[in-house]
């Protein structure tokens, strides 16, 4: 009964894009389907109940939906498109950004696909997804379905346990000043300026009310939580906005106040307050990010340039001489060795290629056996948040609703 209802609902929901209805605003805000949908009957009822409970526990604890869907058919869609649409149309995803990961397995063509959404697109990057897939796909191939799904869930939980939830750090708009688009723009500006500034994180925190706390206490609590991208070795400056009180505060940690002087902070607060008063929250926060960046850059310049100018020429000339001498040594060594070798022409032969009978090689066995695959990742030097897959087929893609998803697909 339960499965029959699930199937009917799923078919109805999948028909939505076919009818030309693909408006994001009409997508469900609450999850319509359970985290486990087994239309392929790969699991027993007992297994389903136990595994569903496990998925719900992980999703609840991690604040990120981890779902497994086993449809009977893909309805003519690709595995990736089906997974993306299924995710959106059934309202999967945790929080306003709909964070989650969904595994779709279809026995019809033995397809599988993973679909990530919201912040989970960043948490489950390509390398992470590959490593997860390498763990569960062989089990699917062997018909160990429950074991495969449990492996998927366990690996996801492990990733989520270690995830760096950066979005919270640079911008926490708890007071709801920004819409989704503005939020992304501001977040990108804060991230970018922080990275370029190098020594200091630039943060915007909005709260409905500080609830009796001072802005410094509130920000310091976050600063000392150790969850910032730059860690404790970097300075931090935050614009704290108390919506109910209508107040802006520029708060720094104990090291950033070397360059965020009282005058600087007052200026930043005034600028933000003016723009917020005009209803331009996004402009206020971006202005704050830019002004803070200029102050940090000015400090960098004051502390960096004189040292280089004062000592640069002498130090650099010596350095240049060492490099030149090294180049001279290497070139001379090579040239004289080549000249010496001109005098030596007696040498033994190591092989017998000259006496190989042409076309006499007959291969009796030629085997190329696949052993394993692994993916390593290293952070890019210049980070942006605008990229897609970057040349890899498993990169970003969009569902019928136009929502960005991550994930891979393949056969098992």
């Amino acid at each position, binding site marked *: 009964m339960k499965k029959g209802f699930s199937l009917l609902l799923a078919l109805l929901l999948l028909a939505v894009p076919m009818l030309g209805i693909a408006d994001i605003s009409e997508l469900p805000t609450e999850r319509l389907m359970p985290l486990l949908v087994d239309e392929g009957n790969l699991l027993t009822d007992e297994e389903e109940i136990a595994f569903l409970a496990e998925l719900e526990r992980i999703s609840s604890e991690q604040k990120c939906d981890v779902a497994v869907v086993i449809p009977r058919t893909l309805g003519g869609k690709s595995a990736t498109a089906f997974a993306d649409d299924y995710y959106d149309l059934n309202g999967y995803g945790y929080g306003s950004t709909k964070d989650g990961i969904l595994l779709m397995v279809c026995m019809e063509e033995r397809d599988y696909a993973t679909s990530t959404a919201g912040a989970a697109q960043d948490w489950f990057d390509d390398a992470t997804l590959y490593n997860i897939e390498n763990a569960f796909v062989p089990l699917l191939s062997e018909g160990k379905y429950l074991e495969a799904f449990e492996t998927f869930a366990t690996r996801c939980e492990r990733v989520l346990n270690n995830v760096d939830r950066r979005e919270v750090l640079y911008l926490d708009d708890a007071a709801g000043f920004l819409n989704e688009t503005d939020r992304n723009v501001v977040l990108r500006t804060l991230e970018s300026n922080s990275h370029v500034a190098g020594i200091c994180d630039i943060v915007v925190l909005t709260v409905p009310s500080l609830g009796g706390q001072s802005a410094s206490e509130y920000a310091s609590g976050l600063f000392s939580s150790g969850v910032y991208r730059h860690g404790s070795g970097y300075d931090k400056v935050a614009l704290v906005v108390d919506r109910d009180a209508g107040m802006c505060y520029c708060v720094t940690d104990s090291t950033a106040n070397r360059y965020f002087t009282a005058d600087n902070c007052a200026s930043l607060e005034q600028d933000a307050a003016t723009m917020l008063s005009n209803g331009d929250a996004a402009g206020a926060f971006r202005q704050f990010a830019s002004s803070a960046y200029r102050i940090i850059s000015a400090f960098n310049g004051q502390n960096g340039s004189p040292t280089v100018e004062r000592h640069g020429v002498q130090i650099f000339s010596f350095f240049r001489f060492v490099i030149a001498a090294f180049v001279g040594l290497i070139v001379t060594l090579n040239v004289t060795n080549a000249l010496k070798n001109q005098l030596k022409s007696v040498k033994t032969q190591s092989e017998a290629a000259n006496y190989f009978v042409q076309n006499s090689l007959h291969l009796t066995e030629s085997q190329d056996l696949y052993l394993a695959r692994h993916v390593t990742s290293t952070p890019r030097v210049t980070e942006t948040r605008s*990229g897609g897959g970057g040349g890899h087929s498993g990169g970003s893609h969009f569902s019928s609703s136009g929502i960005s998803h991550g994930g891979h697909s393949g056969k098992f």
Partner: protein
Amino acid sequence: MSELLEYKCPCCGAGLTFSSALQKMKCEYCDSEFDVETLKAYDDALKKAEKKDPEVSAPTGSDWEPGEQDGMRIYSCESCGGEVIGDETLAASACPFCGNPVIMKAQFAGDLRPDVVVPFKLDKEAAKKGFEKHLLGKRLLPKVFRSQAHIDEIKGVYVPFWLFDADVDATVQYHATQTRSWSDSRNNYVETTEYSLLRSGTMQFSGIPVDGSKKMDDALMESLEPFDLSEAVSFQTAYLSGYFADRYDVSAEESIPRANARLRISTESALHSTIPNTYSTVTPKSARVKTVDSRARYGLLPVWLMNTTWNGKSYRFAMNGQTGKFIGDLPMDKGAYARWWVLLGIGVTVAAYALMTACSALI
């Protein structure tokens, strides 16, 4: 007393030598030329007709002391009766008294008869020019070496080689990787896929030469390679006339390890060449190279040998009598070597410093 073989001109009776330019036997006195096969037939007919003398004449002079002739062979020249003394491997030489080329027949009797010989294609003049050319362009060669180093002796020598033919059955296992890289907005990725490769196959090698003479330096002989064995002909003693020759004193069995060592590397290399270049790395993990069938031929290969002495040290040079490849280590002018080090080192250092300064100014 061992028997000597001389080829005499049917026209004038003088000694005949093998001409590398004509690839024929030539009489230096009457300029007559004879094809090797024709001369052999003539020689055989003559020998059937003539009454065989019981033995060549006994040497004159005092008797050898007991043991004094160990490792030594004494021959009597059929032209002048002069005594030719050589070591136990000497197979062809020239009479020191009349200059006629002589061949020690006993050195080619029975198992000692070579299967093939590669005739000389280049003569003594070519060897001299090869030596002069060998000295050109050597910046660290002492200048006085060119003027003071005079070739003591140039000898055309047929060096005994064992020529190994082998059918090989081999299997090599490799570990290979393919890498693919891409980037997304945050990370650079490298995907490494690992494979186990197996290649088995059969192949043939023909005429891998191994020096069969202890007198010849193995490295010197191998440096002269390759020899084109497609030009090898069935052995005829006539080819040796006018040249020196040794018989082998290293057996085929003793030469097998050297041939196997070279064969193994080339076998692995041949199998490696069947692996497509789509792999980023290919590392051999294990190899089995088995010689299914092998044969050794005894061959004489042509080498011009030259010796010179300079500053009390002897230098030996050799030229491939077939291809003209010239080899031989040369002395080094240590003063010139030091000058190159100092002047080039300073020059490059100054240039590199100036270049960096110029680039720095531009930036």
